[in-house]
């Protein structure tokens, strides 16, 4: 909870800058005064303001980083520790309908053309785990002849041209200078237009706060030099996170040394989660 509050503080800091655009801002700690934001400030200069005005995070300069995420689907074993860690870390509702990250299982049976797909949220898998708050993949194909099977972790793609940011009527969701798409929970009106616009199903409605919610790449952690919770707990290194400005970082190396793919490139959104080991059936 403490971490969530800190994240919101960062978001408030950005809001505050926009509100005072045109004047000199001493620091990013003063109260939110978003109502004075001009429309031009919100839209046209969004990128410029984000790049020039960092949130008040001690020892962190968001103009010096460009975060990106990698998924090595070849390595994923579907243990779902990432999903559970994310829920705990980010206080996501412990049910089968709200996820900042999830894992899909693709199974092609002998004689079938198309893969059968399920996620940990599938009723069969929820029944197998015995709880909506704990996750496991049921061994539902044990009596079938499996030709091919693999897992694909999913999360917000923190797109370069995010459709969710485009449609937000208030500017409550925005892209930071370091490449993360975040939501100002103190400013979101809860219209859910962004939920509709995201082609990846990465956004959901947080019924406790009555605002939209989604993955932040654990912004409260990465700005302190930590890894996102899902990356931290992955036992096989299927999730890779790092700074693309650092050519020696694990993500830069991952992108450099592999033939990476992004999901739904045809949308024009420019996803920043790079995949290795996906397949034609992966959506």
């Amino acid at each position, binding site marked *: 909870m403490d971490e969530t509050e800190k994240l919101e503080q960062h978001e408030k800091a950005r809001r505050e800058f926009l509100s005072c655009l045109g004047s000199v801002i001493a620091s990013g700690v003063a109260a939110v005064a978003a109502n004075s934001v001009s429309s031009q400030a919100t839209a046209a200069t969004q990128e410029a303001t984000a790049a020039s005005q960092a949130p008040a995070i001690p020892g962190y300069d968001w103009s010096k980083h460009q975060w990106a995420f990698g998924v090595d689907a070849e390595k994923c074993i579907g243990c779902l520790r990432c999903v559970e860690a994310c829920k705990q870390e980010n206080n996501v509702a412990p049910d089968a309908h709200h996820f900042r990250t999830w894992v899909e299982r693709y199974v092609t049976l002998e004689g079938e053309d198309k893969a059968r797909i399920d996620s940990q949220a599938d009723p069969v898998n929820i029944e197998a785990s015995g709880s909506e708050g704990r996750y496991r993949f049921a061994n539902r194909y044990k009596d079938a002849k499996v030709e091919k099977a693999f897992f694909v972790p999913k999360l917000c793609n923190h797109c370069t041209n995010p459709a969710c940011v485009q449609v937000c009527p*208030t500017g409550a969701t925005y892209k930071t200078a370091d490449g993360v798409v975040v939501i100002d929970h103190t400013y979101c009106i809860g*219209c859910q237009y962004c939920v509709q616009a995201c082609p990846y199903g990465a956004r959901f409605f947080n019924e406790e706060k009555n605002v939209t919610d989604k993955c932040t790449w654990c912004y409260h952690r990465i700005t302190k030099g930590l890894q996102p919770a899902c990356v931290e707990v992955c036992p096989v290194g299927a999730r890779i996170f790092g700074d693309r400005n650092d050519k020696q970082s694990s993500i830069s190396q991952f992108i450099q040394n592999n033939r990476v793919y992004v999901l739904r490139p045809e949308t024009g959104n420019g996803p920043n989660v790079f995949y290795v080991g996906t397949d034609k059936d992966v959506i």
Partner: protein
Amino acid sequence: MEALFHASPFTGYVYPNETVIPWTVLIVVYPYLTGLVAGAFTISSLYQVFGFKQLRPVAHFALLVSLCCMITVPLPLLLHLGHPERAFNAMITPHTTSAFAVFGYAAAFYVILLTIETWFVFRPQIVEKSRQPTGISRWFYRILSLGSDDVSEKAMSYDQKWLFALAIIGIPGAHGLHGYVGFVFGSLKSREWWSSDLMPVIFLLSAIISGTALVIILYVLSCKLRKVSVDLACLKIMAYSLWGFMMFTLVIEGVEFLSLVYRGREGIDVIMEFVKGPLVVPFFILQFGCGSVLPLAIITFMIWRGTSGTALIVGITGCSILVLLAVLMMRYNVVIGGQEISKTGKGLLAYHPPIFGREGLLAAGIVLAIPMIMLSVLVRIFSPWHDATHVADPAHGA
């Protein structure tokens, strides 16, 4: 205690977050109401601007219908918002790339325009009632007159210029507002069911037929309540408008659906599964069959046979009720249907709207009833009937 959310069952594969449908029946009601506004305003403008004198009996009434619906339009949106108290954020700090950010301005502009136009239309009546020698109501009308009590010929001619200008601005305003609602859906690339350039056109045409149908029903009903005879010439021209716009609507809807199927992009299998399964009753039987083809056939038959008298009134009113229901079904099939087809293109959700609760059917029904209640009050304050005296009359004016 009301459940925090309603999860929908699904078949195939849907993204885990998709099981809670984001936009519910309130977002079905929202484009429905804006459609009624545009349609009723069209009827009013056909008289006000284009001089369709046959529409005189309903012209001012249609304006009131439009006003009442427009005042209610923001309500379903506000009810739907997670934080309605922050609704003005979209107007104070509009994010200019968002189609939604325009809504507050467009709606406010249009409510103001309709209010001013209503005031001009009923100003002679207001002035007359404010001059009553006795009664408390004269004070009410005196305030409504805003101190403008000149009803001389010169003043009336000046009023007519205003009315003409307001109606001229109002036509693109009303239609723009509704075309924009179609754009809100059609511009989203994430949903194949919505993503169509024809969506604004379909919304607009169906808006005109729904508004016309509503004016027909309410006019006939009001005649029965007021025990006056229905003006058949007026009814006929509204029926002709209905017929014409219905033809366009059907053609465009058909073309849109054909394009979707013919393009056959990824996910078309699931769309076809949806069309042949859950959509058979709400779309093919209710919206297309009962609500479009049947009334079109009946009206065609009546035009062909030269039906008149009570049979014409009953026939046209019956058809209008069917059309009104069909357009509501159309909004439902677009808004809810679009969300029942998963973004994965590999699964279908089945949304069952709750009856109670903020986003339930009851709430949606109440929202739809509000403009009717408002209208029943307004027609008592301003008499919109052409038999009422001293109502501004552009056909004899500018």
